[in-house]
């Protein structure tokens, strides 16, 4: 139990209860580190309102909203943003389906090749990104496939499948088999059982896996830089722009993406709370 502070049962049931005398150092520590994590994001948001001329967005010049009105001023930046969103959504869809099937299989069945499958998934999660990017580049080169949108998508699906699969697998192994048996007793065929019983129970995990794939895809820089060819994504564009100075529109888009992330997270929490209540 609460080794860090008091040992009474009250600390267990009412963690919000104020501490007598003893300072909760763990709490302070956690919040300070959290603040550290958010500091560069606060900087990004602040500088998206910075009233500068030109691209040298380093010192504070005053408040303005003009970059928000002018968010889409750079055409190649818009293309990069579009690519990032499109690849992210397609990755979420493809890796979501392929990874969920894989997660269902390894969580539910014993089959030949399972050990190898686990090993490959494990390797795909823990292999360094430069290795994955570089080896894919080698493959595309030797097969004369020109790098671009499709190769980025292929790469992103490749490295996110395993993450979706382990998320879904974790849910599959906690499912109560009696519910499916009950459905079968009530005359449902295997497909109907899956559609009306198994799938709805797996849906939260499938969605979580899909969102994870989306987040990983949108954030990825290293693998993408190897397989992108002339196609740019949002992180690649920022990287390329560091030499000439990053326009404030990048901070604006970063802030907007962050806001969408916050909204998704809030929705996720609300839905999870609501789903938890009936049980």
């Amino acid at each position: 139990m609460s080794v860090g502070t008091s040992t009474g049962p009250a600390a267990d049931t009412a963690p919000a209860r104020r501490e007598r005398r003893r300072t909760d150092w763990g709490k302070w520590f956690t919040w300070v580190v959290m603040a550290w994590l958010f500091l560069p994001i606060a900087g990004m948001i602040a500088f998206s309102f910075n009233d500068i001329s030109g691209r040298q967005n380093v010192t504070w010049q005053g408040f303005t909203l003009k970059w928000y009105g002018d968010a889409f001023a750079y055409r190649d930046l818009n293309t990069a943003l579009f690519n990032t969103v499109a690849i992210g959504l397609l990755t979420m869809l493809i890796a979501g389906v392929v990874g969920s099937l894989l997660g269902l299989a390894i969580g539910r069945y014993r089959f030949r090749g399972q050990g190898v499958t686990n090993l490959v998934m494990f390797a795909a999660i823990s292999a360094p990104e430069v290795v994955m990017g570089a080896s894919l580049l080698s493959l595309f080169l030797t097969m004369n496939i020109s790098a671009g949108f499709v190769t980025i998508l292929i790469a992103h699906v490749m490295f996110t499948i395993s993450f979706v699969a382990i998320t879904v697998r974790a849910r599959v192994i906690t499912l109560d088999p009696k519910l499916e048996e009950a459905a079968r007793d009530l005359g449902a065929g295997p497909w109907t059982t899956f559609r009306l019983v198994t799938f709805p129970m797996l849906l939260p995990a499938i969605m979580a896996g899909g969102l994870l794939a989306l987040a990983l895809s949108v954030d990825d820089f290293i693998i993408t830089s190897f397989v992108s060819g002339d196609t740019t994504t949002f992180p690649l564009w920022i990287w390329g722009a560091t030499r000439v100075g990053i326009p404030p529109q990048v901070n604006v888009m970063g802030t907007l993406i962050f806001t969408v992330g916050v909204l998704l997270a809030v929705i996720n929490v609300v839905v999870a709370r609501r789903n938890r209540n009936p049980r």
Partner: protein
Amino acid sequence: MRTRGAPYFLVLPAWIWLAIFFVVPIVGMLSVSLMTGNVIDGFTMTWHFATYADAVTQYWPQILRSLWYGLCATAVCILLGYPIAYWIAFRGGSHKSTYLLLLLLPFFVAQVLRTISWKFILADNGVILGSLKAVGLLPDGAHVLSTSAAVVFGLAYNFLPFMVLPIYAVLERVDHRVVEAAHDLYAGRFQAFVRVVLPMSLPGVFAGVLMVFVPTSSDYISASVLGGTHNTMIGNVIQSQYLVNNAYPMAAAITFILMAILLVGIFSYARALGTEQVMEVQAK
């Protein structure tokens, strides 16, 4: 018949995708590393093992530096991450998932952009150093950027949540009654932690080490943005050999050396602990 075929039907798409775009490329890269030639005339297989010797003699400083930076960043992540995971798991109450979410929220902003943001904050005349110099707490020449500390800082910053989550997953499952039992047996707070909770959380720490050490020691974003020219890591070398010099055999050889070093460690550890357990920790 139907149920016996079902698992293969389900895994087939993933098998195909991972085989073609993960397993085959890595084997292919191994073969490229033994070829000679250039981009214009093409590459031919000559079983040229000397590339590996060249790679090691030329780039051993970057290889060692990468492993060292990776170790330092991993250590920082344990020191910062363990108390946080501990506090959330034992003291988070009903807000546990909210804290975890807060920890992950910065990741909606691209790693590249966050690292560049740090570059501005830590700049010689930036918010932090600039103000410290203005009040005279730091000498005018003081700087943080382009030091090895800046690289380790950036690496630890970017990968901290990957340490917190696995440790949290394990601590969350620790039965509180076990700790109470330790207290009943007259273990003090410190003793109960060291002899009961800490050993139980080690699989999570190992999983976290894996999740942090591998990506940090092969990352090149932090080294490029925060490290200047004297702190390049092996990732920088691989990146420039592939994308700037087009020296594919050399690049493939270095990549393979990096992967060999990392994977030998990972797989021996995974064998000892079981891959399923490690993945399960990561899934939570």
